[in-house]
C-alpha cells in the first residue's frame, strides 16, 4: 500500500476526474478505469483499489439519480425489485473478496472486461424497438418522454428471471472487482428484457448506489478503505462525470461503443498479464 501523502491524494483526484469523465461518456461508471489504475499503476492492493472505487460508484449513482428523479426515466419499481438480487450478490461478493487471492481477482477482472467488450462490439448495429405509446406497460414496465424524438416511449419488461439473474451476478462482480456492475446489467436489460437503452442505463445507475454500498461497507469494516484517498477519488470522479455529461452528448454512440470496447480489451489484457504472473 503506497504511503498516504498530499501528492498521492492529488494524483488520485486527477485520475478520478479522468475516470469519471470517461465513465460518463461511455456510460460505464468510472470504476472500470479507476481500479486498474490504482492497482496496476499505483500499486494498491486489489481490495484497497476496489474499496476506493466503490465509494465513487455510490457518489456518482446518488448524484445522477437525484438529478433524474421525477423525469420517469428511472424505472424505480423494477430497480427496487432487482436490488433484492444485486444487494444479495454484492453481500456475497464482498465476503468472498476477503478470502480470495489478488491474482484471482485480477484474472476475473480481465475476463469480465473482455466479455463486456465483446458484447459491446456484437451489439453495434442493434437498435431498440420503440413500442407504440398505447401499449400497456404492465406492472414493471415504464413510460417516459424522449427529448430527441419528442414522443413518449413505452416498454414492457420481458424475461424477468434473466434480469434477476443478471442483477445478482452484477452485484457479485461489483463487490469483488469494485465496479458498479452496470456493464453487466445494462446490456442484458437492453438486449433481452425489452428496455430501451436510456431507461436501462438510468435504472442501473439508480441501483448501483445500493449495490456498491453493500460491498463498500464490508471493505470499510476490514479497514481496506482509506478515507482521505477515497474522498479525493470521490471529488475527482464527481467533477469528471459532470464534465463528461455536459460535453458528451455530441459524441456518436457507435464511435463511443468501439472506443469503449478497445479500452476494455486493453485493460483486460493488462489485468490478465498481471494476474497470471
Amino acid at each position, binding site marked *: 500500500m503506497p504511503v498516504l501523502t498530499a501528492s498521492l491524494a492529488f494524483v488520485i483526484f486527477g485520475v478520478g476526474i479522468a475516470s469519471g469523465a470517461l465513465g460518463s461518456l461511455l456510460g460505464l461508471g468510472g470504476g472500470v478505469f479507476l481500479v486498474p489504475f490504482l492497482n496496476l499503476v499505483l500499486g494498491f492492493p486489489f481490495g484497497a483499489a476496489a474499496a476506493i472505487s466503490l465509494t465513487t460508484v455510490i*457518489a456518482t449513482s*446518488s448524484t445522477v439519480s437525484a438529478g433524474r428523479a421525477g423525469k420517469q426515466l428511472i424505472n424505480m419499481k423494477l430497480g427496487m425489485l432487482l436490488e*433484492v438480487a444485486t444487494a444479495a450478490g454484492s453481500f456475497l461478493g464482498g465476503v468472498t473478496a476477503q478470502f480470495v487471492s489478488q491474482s484471482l481477482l485480477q484474472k476475473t477482472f480481465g475476463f469480465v472486461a473482455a466479455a463486456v467488450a465483446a458484447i459491446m462490439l456484437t451489439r453495434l448495429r442493434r437498435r431498440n424497438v420503440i413500442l407504440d405509446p398505447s401499449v400497456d406497460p404492465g406492472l414493471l414496465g415504464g413510460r417516459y418522454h424522449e427529448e430527441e424524438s419528442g414522443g413518449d416511449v413505452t416498454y414492457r419488461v420481458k424475461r424477468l428471471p434473466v434480469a434477476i439473474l443478471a442483477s445478482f451476478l452484477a452485484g457479485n462482480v461489483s463487490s469483488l472487482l469494485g465496479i458498479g456492475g452496470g456493464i453487466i446489467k445494462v446490456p442484458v436489460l437492453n438486449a433481452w428484457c425489452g428496455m430501451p437503452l436510456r431507461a436501462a442505463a438510468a435504472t442501473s445507475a439508480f441501483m448501483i*448506489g445500493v449495490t456498491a454500498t*453493500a460491498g463498500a461497507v*464490508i471493505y470499510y*469494516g476490514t479497514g481496506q478503505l482509506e478515507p*482521505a484517498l477515497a474522498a479525493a477519488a470521490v471529488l475527482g470522479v464527481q467533477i469528471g462525470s459532470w464534465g463528461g455529461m455536459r460535453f458528451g452528448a455530441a459524441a456518436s454512440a457507435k464511435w463511443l461503443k468501439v472506443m469503449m470496447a478497445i479500452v476494455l480489451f486493453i485493460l483486460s489484457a493488462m489485468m490478465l498479464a498481471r494476474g497470471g504472473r
Partner: protein
Amino acid sequence: MKLERAVGAVLRAGVTISTACMVLGLLVTLSAGEGSAARLLLHAGIIILLATPVARVIVSIVQYVIARDWMFSALTTIVLVELAASAIAALFFNRRL
C-alpha cells in the same frame, strides 16, 4: 411521483453533506496535517456517503407502506435487511482483524 421526489431529495442531501465533509476534511489535512479533526471529517464524509443509499431505501419503504403497496414494501424491506447483513459482516471482519 411522490416517491421519486422523496428519493431524489434524500440522495441530493446525502451527497451534498458528505461531499462538504470530504472537501473540509481534505482541506484541513492539507493545511494542518493529519489530525483528529481531519480524520473525523473524512470518516464522517465516508459514513454519510455509505448511509445515503440506506436512507433512500428506508424512505422508499415508508412511501410504499403509506401507499399500501405491500409487495414493494416487502421487497424494499428485504433490500434493507441485506444492507444490514453487509454491515454485520463488516463488524465481524472488523473485530477479527
